């Protein structure tokens, strides 16, 4: 009788142990899956940040020193034609380049960064230069995105390297239309744009 009980206990213990092992194994697998998921998420984030920084270190810097032609003409929202150099008016300004050929959410992300920045960039030193086939489209865009900055439409092509990427970018130009700084924002990482703003405010506040 005792032997039977012993066997029964042994089998019961074995079953319980197996169940515990299965549960532990499942828990471990679940943890592993979650870890891998989180790891790949963080790795992707890191890769993206690295790409943005690499892109900005190489592509942005290659634009510094570029000088725009004095005869670049833009259209204001009332379709009047003006020379870019006259708009700058002898000051350093931050220009944000948008276009109807860019990824539209990328363009909008840059505008949101401008609207939300804590870097106190003087309002009158921000200029939006769009490239829209029709200047009336720029007007619709301004209304749709609640843009309060001076905005102009550029119809001619400009040969600055930054244009090649068909992607929005920020540049600071001085009174001679020379590029002092350049940055390509990443829509999913607006804090990087904020770092850029905090790093360039001295170029705009004192000039």
């Amino acid at each position, binding site marked *: 009788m005792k032997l039977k009980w012993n066997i029964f206990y042994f089998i019961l213990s074995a079953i319980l142990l197996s169940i515990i092992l299965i549960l532990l194994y499942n828990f471990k697998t679940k943890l592993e899956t979650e870890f891998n998921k989180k790891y790949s998420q963080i790795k992707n984030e890191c890769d993206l940040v690295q790409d943005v920084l690499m892109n900005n270190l190489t592509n942005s810097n290659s634009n510094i020193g570029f000088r725009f032609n004095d005869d670049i*003409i833009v259209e204001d929202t009332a379709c009047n*034609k003006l020379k870019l150099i006259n708009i700058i008016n002898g000051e350093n300004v931050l220009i944000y380049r948008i276009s*109807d*050929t860019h990824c539209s959410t990328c363009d909008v992300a840059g505008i949101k960064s401008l609207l939300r920045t804590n870097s106190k960039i003087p309002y009158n030193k921000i200029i939006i230069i769009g490239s829209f*086939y*029709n200047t*009336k489209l720029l007007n619709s865009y301004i209304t749709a995105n609640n843009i309060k900055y001076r905005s102009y439409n550029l*119809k*001619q092509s400009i040969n600055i390297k930054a244009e090649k990427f068909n992607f929005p970018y920020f540049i600071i130009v001085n009174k001679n239309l020379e590029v002092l700084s350049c940055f390509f924002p990443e829509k999913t990482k607006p804090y990087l744009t904020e770092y850029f703003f905090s790093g360039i405010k001295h170029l705009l506040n004192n000039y």
Partner: protein
Amino acid sequence: MAIAIRLNFIFIMKKILFGLLLILISCNNKNSTIQEKQHIKAISRNIDQESLKLDAEVSFVQLETSKECLLGYIINIEVTDDYIYILDRSSFFVFTNKGNFIKKIKRGKGPGELTRAINFSLDLARNEIYIIEMGNLLHIYNNLADYKETHKLDGSFIDVVRVDDDNFLLYTVLPPKYEEFLISVYNKKSKNITNKFISSKDLLMKDLSILTYNNFFVKNSEIFFSASNSRNIYKYIGNGMETTYSIDFRNLEPPISYFSMFDDVRNFKKMVYNDDYVGFLNYCYDLGKLVLFGFKCKDFNCGIKYKDENIMYMSSVSELFDLPQTPSFERPYNANDNQIHFVYFNDILLNDNLQKKEAFLEIGNKIIQVNENNNPIIVTLKIKEK
């Protein structure tokens, strides 16, 4: 022994009869689509461009400009006898053939509304419009853009053409590591992909492709297909795609080892141009007496092949049709029957004429006023039979 010889004789006779039967069937089948592919050799040297010039009747349509129909970056157009259909980054527009605005599809996520349409095509026989949204939604509308139905697609596609009552051909936008086949057949009834054609494994440029919007061309109920990364032009034959033309750009063809040097399309596009080779095939239009191929290299942006020849004469669209050499005439936006259509983005008011607000565009004996900030002009060339 005698039985064995008799059985052998019967077996051979059966084979001969079967062979004869097959030959008879193939001879009687008038609709047989099996044909030899044509190798086309490109000629790029010593061409008298003047002799290549094509006679065409020009017509202009100024698209109406109003707040409701301001056009931005245009993706694709279709021109029919009655309507002009335009898909831009913001919406899908219908104009009359005189350019008057009729309708645009509302932006949004409701039934039939669009947020990110990427291409469209027409079926003139069924009076239907097919719009692909985000690659995986196929919206069906009538010819006035009234919504009918939506199909969710398993995959990501850039172009569509209707084959018959139940089936569509779809051209994938995914790279080979995600989708091996260029063409998928979608069955409307079963709501499934039922077949796949053209393996990208066989293509030299399998990992290098760009988005092109007019990959299918329907001519006399036959469907032809071209892809940016293939040198072949295919024809749909019901149970597959057969190669109709195979293009050899000869001295402008990059060596086979060249393609493996690139894993980045942008870099390839730049280098292939700098090295004076032909990279991607942009379009192929069957215009009746000739076939027009589009691509880009330093000296040429198109080639023409007459139906009875297997030679492609390299040229440029502007030279071929005596058009102004401006960006709007670098490539046609679409073509049908013997007509090719361009979208003219008021080029004449750019570059040297930035201060002007209006000018005149003159092509052949036709002239039209171009006004700044007006919607573009549709320029149609109807090729004349010589």
